[in-house]
Structures are given as structure tokens and as C-alpha cells.
């Protein structure tokens, strides 16, 4: 094989070269003869839909998986990476999408974990070295803080410092911005640019094309496990990148039909929720949810989104305040104190997609039709459950939402993330709700599947359903939602119009410390009306 130098002849030797990498899981081909070069002092964006094999490919570089076929060259020399330890030795550090940190350890303990240095364990010396690394690249992290006390962005910083502490000069980041606010993303990119200037090779996996444009020098695209092509970032545009990823032309605009005759469906007045250990989760929240529109909820994760939806669905103990459900005839009924079943029968449906996608709403080991039954098993008069209707419903959902599954008796855990989410959202929509609460419905989904979900939500909106969409991606919220409620630390820090608001404004509201006080909150509410 003498092609190792040719691909990057004009840039010197590539930091990493992959040649003919193939990896199969059972009968599924995750990577099919992939060739890829990563150079020093550049940021490479790796693009592809869910299941296109990006993470698998990178896991082979970081020693989690071992390729079935193919060669890996580091600085021109062929290497065999059989374990994460080997990866460190070759200077490869990977920041996984789900952080690999021990919650009850301090940052320092996590960073030195697994290192076999001589002598006794000296935490103080390690902390000092970590502080030096932080100063070099502009990180802000306290080495002695415990991980569970940290914010998501601090945890991510610890992960990056961990890689650098091990002397990594090839850094792989798997969807690093999925959980960050715009401001935190900017800070991360600034640090990555510093590292690029320092001569490190950086690979970033992301679904957000504007970030690709903002940060990367070069783009490589994978589709269904195969390498499709690469181009310089400055010579391409989002449309071209998307077409390459999907394999055919797609439109990149999210529809936002004008709401037809929106009228209040749920009025939330002074809602206050405290967690069992006494922490305020929602603090006198006021806003309303209107029929026939999509209400976006923005906020850093953990700002009270979950508590808000659960309060409406009756799953959360409410400290004080009212949640008034406005019936079609204009009469109001307080949902606080009602049990979840009663609320469900009034037409409130909740689909919450947690981080692991399966934690809420679906039972992983049960098949599609049994999962449909979770909503309907109480129906009917006989002691036996009705299996026919759930089965039909499952088939309908599979057909209409194009769920990719062998059949409806496949356990849900065998489906890929996007398909699981379609099943969950599909079931909730099938109950013909008056209010549809969705949280993170497109979490981790690729562009194509995401658009299917947006279309579903828009269809519900046109039917006059009040849709609440809790999202992570501000760009999507700004394109999809009619109004956006911004939560910050359990308070409403602003309600903006999705058509006129800009990203920075929402980003600022998400992080505004202290929020605004109670009287102001009511004013904001009045202004929004």
C-alpha cells in the first residue's frame, strides 16, 4: 500500500489516515471500506445521517471497536489500536457524546483515571498540571469540583482537558454542541480554534450545518457506512452538504403555517414546583398555551422543562399555582390535583424523549403493538385485553410514519433511535389529543427523520391541537415555533415571537442570571398577549 502519502501530499504527512476500514455488526455493515485523512492544524467535520457509521468509525480510532478490515496510519506509520489505552499512546483523544465521567469523582480524579504513572497518587500535583493546561487554552474549570455538581458545559470541558492531559494531539468530538447554549458553543469553538492554531488535528461530528461552516476547514461525508466524498468548507454550502448526506436533494426549510384562530387552551398561573429535596424547580411561572399553534420552550437543560410538562400531565406534585384547561365551551377547569389518567382523558398527551430515549413512555423489551397498548389496555369491558386495536394502530403508525422495522412484533429496543421516537410520537398523536406535549422529539435524530417529526407536529397544529415543543436546538425552535417561552433557572425569562426573535436574544434570555422578578414576569406575559 503506497497510497498513504498520496492523499495528503501537499500538506505533508496526515496525522491520521484510514484506508479501507470495514466494520460489521452481525449482518449490519456499519463501515464499508472507508478512506479518510485528517491533517494537523485543521478541523475536519464528519457529516452523515443517523446510522451512517460516523461514531463507529471514530470508535475504531479511539479503541472502543476494532476494525474487521483495513489499515490505520498515524503520522504515516501503520498502527493497530486494540484498546483505549493504545489510542492514548498514539495521541488520540475522543470526547464521547455521552460523557465518560464518574459522577462522584472530582475533575482531577476523572482526568488522571487510568493513567499508570509511577509513584504514589498525587492529586495536588495533578490539579496543578490541569490548571496549567486550562490556562494555556482558556478553559474555565475547577479541578477539585465534583462532576455531579457541574453543568453540562463544564463536564465537557473536563472531557477535553482529560484528552489533552494525556497528550492528545488528535481530538475527536462526537456532537459536542448538542447540549450547549449558543454562548457556550462560541466559547468551545474559540478553544478549538486555539487548539487548531497549536497544530492539533480535530475531528468534529455534528448535525448542525451552520456550525460546520463556522468552525471546520474541511468536510467529509459518510452515507450508509460508505465514504461519499470530501470538500473544503469554504467551497460548499448547507444545501450541497445535505444533498450529499441524504443522497438526493432535500429542502431545508421548516414549514411554519400561520396559526388559524389561536385561542388559549391552557393557562398557567403562578405555577411553582419544588423537588423532593426542597430545590425550586419552577418559580411562579405564567404563560398560556394556545390551540392551533406551536409553543416552543427554550432553556438550558434542567431549567424546569421536565417539571413544567410533568405538572401539566399530572405527574408532578405542584406546590402552588393553577393550570387552567379551557374547554371548547370556554369553561375552565384546574388540572392541578387531578390524576394523570383523568388529564389524559381530557385530551392532554405527553411524549417526552429522555436522554436515553427509552426511559419514558415506551417499554424497551415489549414489541410495538404492546407499547401501543400501554395507552389503551384499560379500554373494553371484558377482563381480557383487546389486542386487535393496538396491533392495527401499530401497523398504521409503521406505515404512516415510515418506521423502519421488520414487523410490529419486534421489541422496541431493537429499533434505531429515530424509529423509536416515531413510534412514541405516533402513539401520542393517534390518541387525537387536544394538547400535545413533546420534549426533545428530535433528540439525536438526523435531518431526514427530524423533518418527518416537524411535519407531524405541523399537521397537528393545523388540526387545532395546542402543541408544546420543548427543544434543544435554537435554530429549529426559531423556525418551527410560533411563540417561544424561555426558561432560566425555573423562571420565565421571556416570551418571544418565533417569527421575529433572533438567536442571540433567546440565548441571552436562556442564561440571564437571576431572571426577572415576579411582577415583571406578569408584565412579560401581558406584553406577549
Amino acid at each position, binding site marked *: 500500500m503506497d497510497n498513504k502519502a498520496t492523499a495528503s501530499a501537499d500538506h505533508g504527512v496526515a496525522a491520521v489516515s484510514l484506508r479501507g476500514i470495514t466494520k460489521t455488526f452481525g449482518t449490519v455493515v456499519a463501515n464499508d471500506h472507508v478512506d479518510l485523512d485528517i491533517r494537523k492544524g485543521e478541523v475536519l467535520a464528519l457529516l452523515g445521517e443517523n446510522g451512517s457509521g460516523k461514531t463507529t468509525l471514530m470508535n475504531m480510532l479511539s479503541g472502543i471497536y476494532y476494525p474487521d478490515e483495513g489499515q490505520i496510519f498515524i503520522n504515516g506509520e501503520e498502527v493497530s489500536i486494540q484498546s483505549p489505552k493504545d489510542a492514548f499512546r498514539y495521541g488520540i483523544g475522543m470526547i464521547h457524546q455521552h460523557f465518560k465521567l*464518574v459522577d462522584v469523582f472530582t475533575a482531577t480524579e476523572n482526568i488522571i483515571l487510568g493513567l499508570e504513572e509511577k509513584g504514589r497518587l498525587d492529586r495536588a500535583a495533578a490539579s496543578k498540571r490541569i490548571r496549567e493546561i486550562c490556562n494555556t487554552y482558556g478553559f474555565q474549570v475547577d479541578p477539585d469540583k465534583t462532576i455531579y455538581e457541574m453543568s453540562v458545559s463544564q463536564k465537557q470541558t473536563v472531557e477535553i482537558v482529560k484528552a489533552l492531559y494525556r497528550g492528545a494531539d488528535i481530538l475527536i468530538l462526537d456532537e459536542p454542541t448538542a447540549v450547549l447554549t449558543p454562548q457556550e458553543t462560541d466559547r468551545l469553538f474559540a478553544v478549538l480554534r486555539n487548539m487548531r492554531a497549536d497544530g492539533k488535528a480535530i475531528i468534529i461530528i455534528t448535525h448542525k450545518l451552520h456550525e460546520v461552516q463556522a468552525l471546520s476547514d474541511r468536510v467529509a461525508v459518510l452515507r450508509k457506512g460508505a465514504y461519499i466524498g470530501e470538500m473544503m468548507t469554504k467551497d460548499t454550502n448547507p444545501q450541497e452538504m445535505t444533498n450529499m448526506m441524504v443522497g438526493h436533494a432535500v429542502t431545508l426549510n421548516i414549514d411554519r403555517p400561520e396559526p388559524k384562530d389561536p385561542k388559549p387552551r391552557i393557562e398557567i398561573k403562578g405555577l411553582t414546583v419544588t423537588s423532593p429535596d426542597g430545590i425550586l424547580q419552577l418559580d411562579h411561572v405564567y404563560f398560556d398555551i394556545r390551540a392551533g399553534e406551536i409553543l416552543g420552550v427554550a432553556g438550558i437543560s434542567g431549567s424546569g422543562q421536565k417539571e413544567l410538562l410533568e405538572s401539566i400531565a399530572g405527574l408532578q406534585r405542584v406546590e402552588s399555582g393553577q393550570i387552567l384547561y379551557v374547554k371548547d365551551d370556554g369553561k375552565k377547569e384546574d388540572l392541578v390535583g387531578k390524576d394523570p389518567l383523568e388529564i389524559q382523558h381530557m385530551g392532554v398527551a405527553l411524549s417526552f424523549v429522555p436522554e436515553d430515549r427509552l426511559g419514558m413512555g415506551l417499554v424497551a423489551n415489549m414489541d410495538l403493538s404492546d407499547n401501543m397498548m400501554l395507552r389503551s389496555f384499560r379500554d373494553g369491558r371484558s377482563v381480557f385485553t383487546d389486542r386487535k386495536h393496538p396491533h392495527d394502530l401499530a401497523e398504521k403508525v409503521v406505515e404512516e410514519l415510515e418506521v423502519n422495522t421488520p414487523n410490529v412484533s419486534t421489541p422496541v429496543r431493537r429499533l434505531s433511535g429515530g424509529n423509536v421516537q416515531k413510534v412514541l410520537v405516533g402513539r401520542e398523536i393517534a390518541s387525537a389529543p387536544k394538547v400535545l406535549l413533546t420534549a426533545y422529539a428530535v433528540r439525536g435524530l438526523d435531518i431526514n427523520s427530524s423533518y418527518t417529526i416537524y411535519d407531524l407536529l405541523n399537521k397537528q397544529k393545523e388540526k387545532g391541537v395546542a402543541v408544546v415543543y420543548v427543544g434543544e436546538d435554537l435554530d429549529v425552535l426559531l423556525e418551527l415555533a410560533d411563540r417561544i417561552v424561555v426558561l432560566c433557572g425555573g423562571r420565565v425569562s421571556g416570551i418571544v415571537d418565533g417569527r421575529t426573535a433572533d438567536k442571540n436574544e433567546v440565548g441571552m434570555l436562556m442564561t440571564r442570571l437571576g431572571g426577572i422578578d415576579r411582577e415583571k414576569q406578569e408584565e412579560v406575559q401581558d406584553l406577549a398577549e
Partner: protein
Amino acid sequence: MFDIVAFIPRMVAQSIPLMFGSTGETITQKSGNLNLGIPGVMYVGAISGVIGAFLYERACGSADAMNGALTILIPLCACLLGSLLMGLLYCVLTVTLRANQNVTGLAMTTFGVGFGNFFGGSLIKLTGADVPSIALSATSNAFRTSLPFGQSLGAFGKIFFSYGFLAYFAIIVSLAAAYVLRRTRVGLHLRAVGESPATADAAGINITKYKYFATCLGCMIAGLGGLYYVMDYANGVWSNDAFGDRGWLAIALVIFTIWRPDIGVLSSFLFGGLYILYLYIPTGMNLAVKELYKMLPYIVTIIVLIITSMRNKRENQPPASLGQSYFREER
């Protein structure tokens, strides 16, 4: 009158099997293995030691013909070997074959108790004695040898120097385990394996190695608790089922000590004391009251379980992956 000088040595003697058991189980649990087979392991440790001592005593014929070092070493090695095999069995099943840890542990306890009683019964048959027990007095004397100057120190000597070497060893092992877990690199790695194996794996730590090592070491330490019970506490007398429920109490102690072997030393003393308190509280002729006092360790365990489950500091929680198998390529 409550006789504290007589009470403390008995309390300590009672607490040593618990200390070995809970320290061994703590080390095991720190690797993420919930070994409910500890009661069985302690039985196997005890009977292995008894078999070793029995065969050696028989081979020598009389106590005079026995070599001092071998008298200690043979039962000790037999005990460690028996416990190690139990540890290996548990690891092969749960780590390599990824069997359910609870089921495996419970099966091992049933197996260990049966194993102990079967061989105990066989040995009793061999001796042809009328009483259903074996007395290994020569071996027991060697295990119970205490420091010679202890006797001359009066009450002080009785409280601090009246024990066999295994008692001091238990305390040393517990304190050493606490130090290793908290202060050393190996301890850090072990805790990481129990908290989050995926993280430890990505950091280049060999999960299988740590799980095997911690579980086998934990079983060997726990097995010593069984040996101490027969050779020292019971004066070398093995009778079936005499060890009782101490193994379960040792597992309860792990939770009580919030996975810290140094606290384990003190709480073993406490539980040992509660276990025999009924003998020292004057109850007169009313035996029913005595029975109520015997309940004390279990009542305290229940109260402690209630308190620990209400406590919500993250550091005091069980290792996060306790009871779960780890498989790298599972998603």
C-alpha cells in the same frame, strides 16, 4: 452490674467475622459486583480450614508431633484456597458469562452452606464421636495464642491483648482496604469500575481484571471470617449450622458503613456488641426478655437501612453500576 472488662473481649471476638465479611464484601461491591454469596463463601472458608486442620491433626496423631507454623499455615491456606475458588466461580458466572448477580450470589450461599454441612457431617462420621461436632483443640490453641505479656497487664491487657492474630489482622486489613480505596491509584481505578465501567473502559482500565481481582480478594478476606469463627471464637469446634446468619449481617454492615472499611471496624464492634448484649443485661428469670434483646442487631439494621435510604449525599450512595454486568459493545 455490667461487667465491661468481660464484655469487651467477647464483643470483639463476636465482631471479627463480621469485620472480615463486610470488608471483603465492600471491596467486591466497589468493583460493581453485588456478591450475595458471601455467607456461603464464609461457610466454605470455615469448612476448608477445618478440613485442612483435621487432616493435619490426624496425620500427626498427637499435639506434640505438630509443627507450630504448619498448624497455622495449613488451615489458613486451605481456607484461602476454598474461598478463592468460590470467588472464581462467582466471577466466571457473572463477569465472563454475565449471569445475573443476585441469582448467582444466592445460589452460592445455598451451595456454600450445604457444602459446609456436608463435609462437616462427613468429618464427624470419620471421627466416630457421639456428639455432632468436631473439636480441633490443637489447631485452635495455635490460632488463639495471644501476646504473652497481655496477661500481666490486667484489665488493659484483657481488653487489648487477649486475642489471636486473626483479630488484629482483621483490623489491619480493614484499615488497609480503606486506605487503598481512598488514597491509591488502584483504589481510584477500582471505584471507577464500580461506578461507571464504560468510563473506566474508555480510560484504558481492564474491567475484567479489576472485577476478578476485587471479587476473589474480597472472597478470600470474607473466608478468613469463617476460619476465625471456627478456630478462635468457637475454640476449634465445628458443628453444622453454628455459624448462623453472620454472613447476612456482614452484607448489611456494608450498607451501614456506607462502603467504607474504616467505619466498618467500628460498626463491626457495635454489631458484635449488640449480638451478645443479651448475655450481659440482667433480665432475671424472665427468658422472654432475653429473646427480645437478641433482636437488637436486626432492629438496628432495619433502622439503619431506613436512615441510609433517606440520606441523599451522592458520595454515600452504592457504586452506581452495582449488580450490573458490563459488555463493551452493548449499546
